[in-house]
């Protein structure tokens, strides 16, 4: 019964989707077809593509959009991740992960040594990704995720190793604060939140894009510490 009803409902939703796509052309491609794509207009990101490079001196337009034009979204996004980390901690508060039989067992030497060897490399890759976020694909989120994977590796490979949750917390707080403060400095200096107040430098250089790399670093640290915190919370006792 439930299946039939669900299928019926979904059929109508699918019909709705079809209805959306039918008729006038859809999406950026559709706009191009109907010649509505204007070069310097904001629609379908044309303006960012055409002017973004000059305005922020940031080779990765997506990064430029993420951190500058739509930086405010990113602040919200970082907040959401922060919430998720905190919420996870709140929900699992006081819970001890069930002691699995493996846990008592010390990890083998090869495993733990391998993990320790890999960990700095992973860190390095992660840091690289978020430092070069404004130049190449990747950025704070991606880099942060890579960093967290390093901590995950430690958790899995060296079971006795506990992460320093105070340090993690401090890192996520401070990096978040850094983001907001960077944004607020823009407000103080130029009257606009998230204003790119630093000299934007030369395009394609590492030190270009004004505050964009700085914010991405903050985000990288934040995402890394938050995801690590989530991993920590899911695997051990939550305090």
């Amino acid at each position, binding site marked *: 019964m439930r299946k039939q009803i669900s299928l019926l409902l979904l059929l109508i939703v699918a019909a709705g989707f079809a209805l959306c796509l039918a008729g006038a052309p859809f999406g950026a491609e559709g706009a191009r077809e109907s010649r509505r794509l204007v070069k310097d207009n904001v629609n379908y990101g044309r303006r960012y593509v055409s002017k973004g490079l000059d305005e922020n001196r940031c080779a990765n337009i997506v990064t430029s959009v993420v951190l500058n034009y739509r930086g405010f*979204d990113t602040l919200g996004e970082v907040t959401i991740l922060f919430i*998720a980390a*905190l*919420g996870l901690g*709140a929900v699992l508060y006081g819970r001890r992960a069930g002691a699995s039989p493996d846990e008592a067992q010390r990890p083998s030497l090869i495993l733990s040594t391998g993990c320790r060897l890999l960990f700095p490399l992973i860190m390095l890759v992660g840091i690289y990704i978020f430092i070069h976020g404004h130049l190449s694909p990747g950025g704070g989120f991606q880099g942060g995720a890579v960093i967290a994977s390093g901590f995950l590796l430690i958790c899995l490979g060296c079971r006795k190793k506990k992460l320093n949750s105070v340090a993690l*917390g401090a890192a996520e707080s401070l990096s978040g*604060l850094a983001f907001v403060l960077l944004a607020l400095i823009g407000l103080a200096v130029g009257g*606009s*939140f998230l204003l790119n107040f630093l000299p934007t430098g030369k395009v394609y250089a590492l030190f270009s894009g004004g505050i964009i790399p700085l914010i991405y670093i903050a985000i990288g640290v934040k995402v890394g510490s938050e995801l690590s915190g989530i991993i920590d919370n899911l695997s051990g006792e939550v305090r």
Partner: protein
Amino acid sequence: MVSPILLIAVPLALAFLTPMVGLASKSARRYMPAIAMLFNFIVAMSLLPKALEAPIIVRTAGWAPPLSIHLVAGPLGLLLSSLVALIGLLVAIYGIDYIREGARARYDVLYTLLLVGATGVVLTGDLFNLFVFFEVLCISSYALVAYRGDSAGVEAGMKYLIQGAIGSSLVLIGIGLLYGTVGTLSMADIASSVGSVAGSRLFISLAFMIAGFGVEAAIFPLNAWLPDAHSSAPSSISAVLSGVAIKAGLYAIARVVYTVYGASSILPFLAVLGVVTLLVGEMCAFAQEDIKRLLAFSSIGQMGLILFALALSSATGISGAVFLIISHGLAKALLFLATGYMIYRTGSRDISSLAGMGKRMPIMSLCFTVGAFSLMGLPPFVGFASKFTIVRAVLGTGSTFFITLLAIGLIGTVIEGAYFLRIVQWLYFKPAPEAMPEQTEGRAPLTALVPVGLLAVLIVTIGLLPGIVGRALGPAADDLLDRAAYIQHVMGD
């Protein structure tokens, strides 16, 4: 000059700072949400007079509106963010002593972020940004509902999350459809180009958004999470959820329907939906024995009435709706807060355990009664003024359709009167059972009495002098109704 963006940035910074403060002093941390909300309240109130003249447009990253995300701190937005800050402040004070268990450090941060989310929703001028802040609000409320980690809380949180997540996805699909159609995300920009694009696609995207935002706004039949979540959350959270969070959902719907789409054809449907929500909420509340669940269902009912008033598409109607948002926010927050300590006192959420509460907790009971009377719309409390405005607006439209709907909806008010007054009777006219387990930690401390008392005083004061908020209601309604002016304000000339 103080920028409205501080309303979001400063509490956010304080929220990020809170764990650090916690490292230094555990007790100082508890005051952080209150400080943040106090700041917000002061800023919002100081900005409000200016916003009443013309919306304050805030650029981010220095670009003019359609280019980057912008905030539109119009009369409606600032009025609602003042309400958010006010209720947030009072509930934060209440929470200082109320929250005794669980991850206290996380509570304070999550609580602040929830309110930041609500503030962001009402202030933003960008559709996707609206979604982001909406998620800030929702995700923090999922976590807070399950904050206590008890069986009911977790179950409610889980159900809330599932429905909320699906709702969010629907919103996102709607936004995607809209973006695919017009290629821009600024609400004013969309609004200016929506007129030129053909029907079906837009309507379906609107349908997705209504269905999505409707989940948070507790519109029937999307409100199944609400009674669970509001009743299982800690009372302070219930208070902000009922008082603030669901209003944000409704605001989102109104903003989308009125400003973004200018979709007047769907309004009668929303009006019907509002009345159905009202009736269903009140009917379900009527048979509840669990006081918090009852209050939660009553919130559904009130949301229905607000939706109905919003759908009137007249200036009085919308100002009535906004007024009801304010009055319901105050009253419902009060009720949940008062209930919180009553539950501590008796250890039970059963209505029958409230017997004789009038004697044991006189101030709480009195305030509860004030709140209940206000919700029912009895004068001289603020609920009356708001409901009166709504009814006046309906009759002002002169449309038989709306008047008939209202007449049906008023039945809900009667039901509401029945169950609230029954509770009042329990409070005052039922003898307290003998040998009551007297829980001394249930005694309400000053941090509980002050917010509850203040809310009661506010309810009476605004009820007697509705002019206090009345001045802002007209511009707030125009903010929503006058699409051309909105576009013009945001986009410049």
